[in-house]
């Protein structure tokens, strides 16, 4: 059985075609980012989640400092490969792809002009031609600097990915508190992480609703007015939620006094893990000083 549309419904609607309008590229981008955020927030921590978060945090910071102090690109590359392999083994491979690859590509491209004699004068190892009667090419110092920064960026990001993808936010903020971060700041960061989901969902609904209502895009002015209104609406929603949460906290006896949870005891495996990581970082630094 076939159904035919009545003429009035089949006829094209007058006024839908709107010249001077463009597709909602910003809506797609924003929605994509919010959905990515919600997906990340709902990810369970990967392997290594059982290790003490304090040990992981402190060792991660020490390793980052060690990487920042290293001058040899070869050793830094070895370190980067080690951390990346560790991250993949810890089940953070997807996060690595999503975070480390884009940042590394951007870094590699942004740093590329600095490999030329135009930006970093030095011994030219690969001539590219001449400009203003001067030889132009890739310099040894420029290439070394490029490699050094790129290796450091990859290694540092991989460390952060391993830390955050194997530790829940709650345990991470507790670890921050244990190394002396202000109690109020840590509490706010902990609560804000929970609200991210609620507000992120509100934002996604808002953007989806706008996208569903739009036909043929909108003018730039309309889009900007929508974003301004959305930001304002989100702000209002944040304030309302904050008041509701405060009332709920007060009803449960919150007086504004912040109490730290009792820290868990360190196990020998945590200490051994921490010592091994620190030893590796010190070894890399020592090697760096030797080859410098």
């Amino acid at each position, binding site marked *: 059985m076939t159904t035919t549309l009545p003429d009035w419904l089949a006829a094209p609607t007058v006024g839908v075609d709107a010249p001077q309008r463009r597709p909602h590229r910003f809506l797609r981008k924003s929605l994509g980012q919010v959905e990515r955020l919600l997906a990340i927030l709902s990810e369970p921590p990967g392997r290594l989640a059982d290790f003490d978060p304090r040990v992981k945090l402190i060792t991660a910071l020490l390793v980052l400092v060690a990487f920042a102090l290293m001058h040899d690109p070869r050793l830094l590359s070895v370190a980067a490969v080690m951390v990346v392999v560790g991250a993949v083994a810890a089940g953070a491979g997807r996060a690595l792809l999503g975070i480390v690859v884009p940042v590394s590509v951007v870094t590699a491209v942004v740093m590329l002009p600095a490999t030329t004699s135009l930006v970093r004068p030095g011994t030219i190892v690969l001539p590219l031609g001449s400009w203003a009667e001067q030889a132009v090419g890739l310099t040894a110092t*420029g290439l070394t600097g490029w490699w050094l920064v790129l290796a450091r960026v990859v290694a540092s990001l991989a460390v952060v990915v391993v830390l955050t993808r194997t530790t829940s936010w709650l345990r991470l903020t507790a670890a921050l508190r244990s190394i002396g971060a202000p109690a109020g700041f840590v509490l706010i960061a902990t609560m804000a992480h929970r609200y991210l989901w609620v507000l992120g969902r509100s934002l996604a609904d808002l953007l989806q609703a706008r996208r569903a209502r739009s036909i043929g895009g909108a003018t730039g002015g309309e889009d900007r007015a929508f*974003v301004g209104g959305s930001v304002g609406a989100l702000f209002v929603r944040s304030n309302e939620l904050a008041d509701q949460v405060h009332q709920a906290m007060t009803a449960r006896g919150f007086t504004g006094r912040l109490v730290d949870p009792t820290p868990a005891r360190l196990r020998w495996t945590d200490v051994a893990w921490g010592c091994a990581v620190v030893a590796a970082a010190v070894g890399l630094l020592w090697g760096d000083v030797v080859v410098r």
Partner: protein
Amino acid sequence: MHVPDGYLSPETCAVGLAIAIPAIAVASRQVMRQVKGRAVPKLAMLSAFSFLIMMFNLPIPDGTTAHAVGSALIAIVMGPAAAVIATAVALLFQALIFGDGGVLAYGVNVVNMAILMPLVATVVNRLVAGNSAAGSVRRITAAAIAGYVAILSASIAVGVELGIQPALFHTADGTALFNPYGLTATLPAMLFAHLLIAGPAEAIITGAGYGFLARTGQLDGIEPTSDKLRGNPGLVSLGVLAVLALATPLGLVAQGTAFGEWAPDELGEQLGAIPAGLEQWSSFWTHSVLPDYGFASGDAPVAAYWISALVGSLIVAGFTYGALWLANRRKPVSTTA
């Protein structure tokens, strides 16, 4: 705008953290004192809000999209102290969840976006808005201008932080250990991008966001703490100290002498003669503690420059503190209409 790890030296990162940590502590204490227990959920919600604002890709007039920081809007509506905390937490999320901005560079990012931006936005907004009514065109324009100037100032700070790296941190053969571009490249690059792309985005978010809140009467129930800038000389002084600390290495990097600050001999070489008045009065005071930003003996010029910078910065920050403290005693000002 978010500086990742690897671009800045550990020394620069340490300076950033040394400024960021006390500023966060001062702002946190001020907000907690002001709104008591309500501050905790309020600030947590604002932090989530600030983080989400950075996810808004905004269509800007040149046809592309950009994202804003949002700390100017929070500073104008809720006050600079609230903006410091909210943006600092949002930056923590970005560094740890998205890898956007480094962990070691967290302090520097906080200085740029969570301290400098709210303070500049508050001052500019107050200057432009004057005593106009909340929601008036002038107020909305002031908010937009404040957002624009605030992100511009933060971009200059980023340009300086990145641009001083190759001059200060390199190997003996000239290999840059961190960001390889000097100030002549980083400042124009940052300014160009923020004058034309990120600046308009921040202005639209701040102006339109403020306009929406004022138009829908949402500002009625909110008590902005922007007037409390006067009530917190410590926070402003720290901001001044932050700017001076970031600008200090410029003196080590800069070539030649500053325009118009020539010694009589230098001017004499350029003009062929020393003006009589200058010759007479230039030797009027010869008891400087740190002449020409150095020790009288001329020893350890770099160390002497840093000591001069520290002393000078502390004096300026001290004067700022004193002036604000006096202003606060004289007349409490409300920015709400």
